[in-house]
């Protein structure tokens, strides 16, 4: 069961997820994340996120579908290089990003 929480503080958007992020959950999650981004853009009155940092906290995530990897890649593309990171990653999930070849790009910790 997907649970998500979004917290914006200064220029940092922290998205915390828990649960089983399968393909269906990721459809919901994708909409939620994009909505959070849109709010920032509209509040800052900008089309791009030049000085925003996005953090995905995946401490309670037990499974990720490839759709979640795509969401991460899309988010990382929207912010300057290095401004996306993933924290509290279970080793099982970290391995998934290593296999996808994205652990460094997405700063998976």
């Amino acid at each position, binding site marked *: 069961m997907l649970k998500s929480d979004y917290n914006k503080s200064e220029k940092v958007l922290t998205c915390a997820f828990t649960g089983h992020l399968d*393909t269906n959950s990721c459809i919901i999650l994708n909409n939620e994340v994009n909505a959070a981004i849109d709010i920032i853009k509209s509040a800052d009155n900008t089309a791009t996120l030049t000085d925003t940092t996005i953090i995905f906290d995946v401490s309670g995530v037990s499974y*990720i*579908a*490839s759709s979640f990897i795509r969401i991460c890649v899309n988010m990382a593309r929207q912010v300057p290089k290095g401004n996306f990171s993933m924290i509290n990653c279970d080793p*099982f999930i970290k391995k*998934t*990003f290593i*296999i*996808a*070849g994205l652990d460094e790009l997405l700063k998976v910790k």
Partner: protein
Amino acid sequence: MEVTNVERADELIRKAIFAAAEFQQFNQEQTDKVVEAVYKAGLNARISLAKMATEETGMGIWEHKVWKNVIGTQLVYESIKNEKTVGIISDDPITGITEIAQPLGPVFAVTPVTNPTSTAMYKILIALKTRNPIIISAHRGAAKCTAEAARICYEAAMAAGAPEDCIQMIPSGSREFTQMVMAHPKIALILATGGTGLVKAAYSSGNPAIGVGPGNVPVFIDESADIPFAVSNILSSKTFDNGTICASEQSIVVVDKIEQKVKEEFENQHCYFLTNEEIKKVEKIAVVEGAMTMNPLVVGQSVDTIARLAGITVPEGTKILLAKLAGVGKDYPLSHEVLAPILAFYSCKDYNAAINICLDLNYLGGIGHSAGIYANDERVIMEFSQLINAGRIVVNTPTSQGAVGGTFNLLVPSLTLGCGTGGKNITTENITARHLINVQRVCRRRINHKFMDADQRMYFDENCTEAVLKLEYHKNH
């Protein structure tokens, strides 16, 4: 902006890697659920896919392709369904060794024109069973039916919860693109079944490969054989899908003493021995001059079509054309592999001469593939088997069905037959799921007391010979 081949290849691989990343989180139960769904969908589509393949390729017999689809789905599934392919697959408290299965990563599969849908479904099943995404490159002559088989399997896999893009097809037609994907550093393994060119390309790609190319299957009928039984079996194999299985008989070898009996039996069972003049005509259309490779024009065609192409007349209802040859090699084109109902026939003065002909045929173009023997003398069977270089020596059995396994013997059912180092393979086994996993071994401490109890200083003493060290090693044990 036009997308380049490099970008297309990268995108294809990226999808496969993401699928691999998701797939490695599956447990055995989730994996088996996907495999079962794919097997059911593939088996249910066996007839439509067989008809489609026959129509598109213009090769073979659709009813026989139904059987191939059954082998590629039901028999393969039955052979792998209970196999452990995820996590801990064995645990031995005595040795202290625990084996853990890990997926390989994206598998690149080349499928042939001769067995397109069955090979595709078989490769999909063994890839999914081992949590590996698969990218299929179909022969351009069978692109549509292979894509349809892949689509059916993919839809079933997705419905059972498989990762997105776990099965992908690459567009046919561009050899350059195929080779680019094949050589991509993120491809974990190439499973190449097809013509010599593609198999060679697979091995040249720099990625690990299991490539299975041509065979040139000799079949020896010994004096001790039940001749009517042998001929009947050979017929059922060589006529199966008009001889398109690479393990089908290519040459029949007998000793002079039984030649007449064997010939009569073939004739009784509606086979036709070509005259020397007719052999010349058939050679011209069956084998490409110079290259000595089979002409695609005759592959999987019926005797009637071959006779028409060669401009010869054969008795109505003829099942197989036999050409009695005096030798092996470039002067005898029909001694090479031809996947059609044409057989070379040799009669030799004695047993040794017959086995020598079998060896010549074996090494002409089918090293490591398959061979057949009909005999009721165990000594002959074992002598033949030790001389022949073949992954499978099929005894008193049709070689097509026998080598593929699962019907006439207990070989693992497979549509990719390992040919050992002779065929530039790492294995002579029938390729199945267990070849698509990396096995990690957890090795717990188990002291080798013989070694530890030995006086270690002796190993540094120049005067201690092997004999002394051997005694010391075994002392008190």
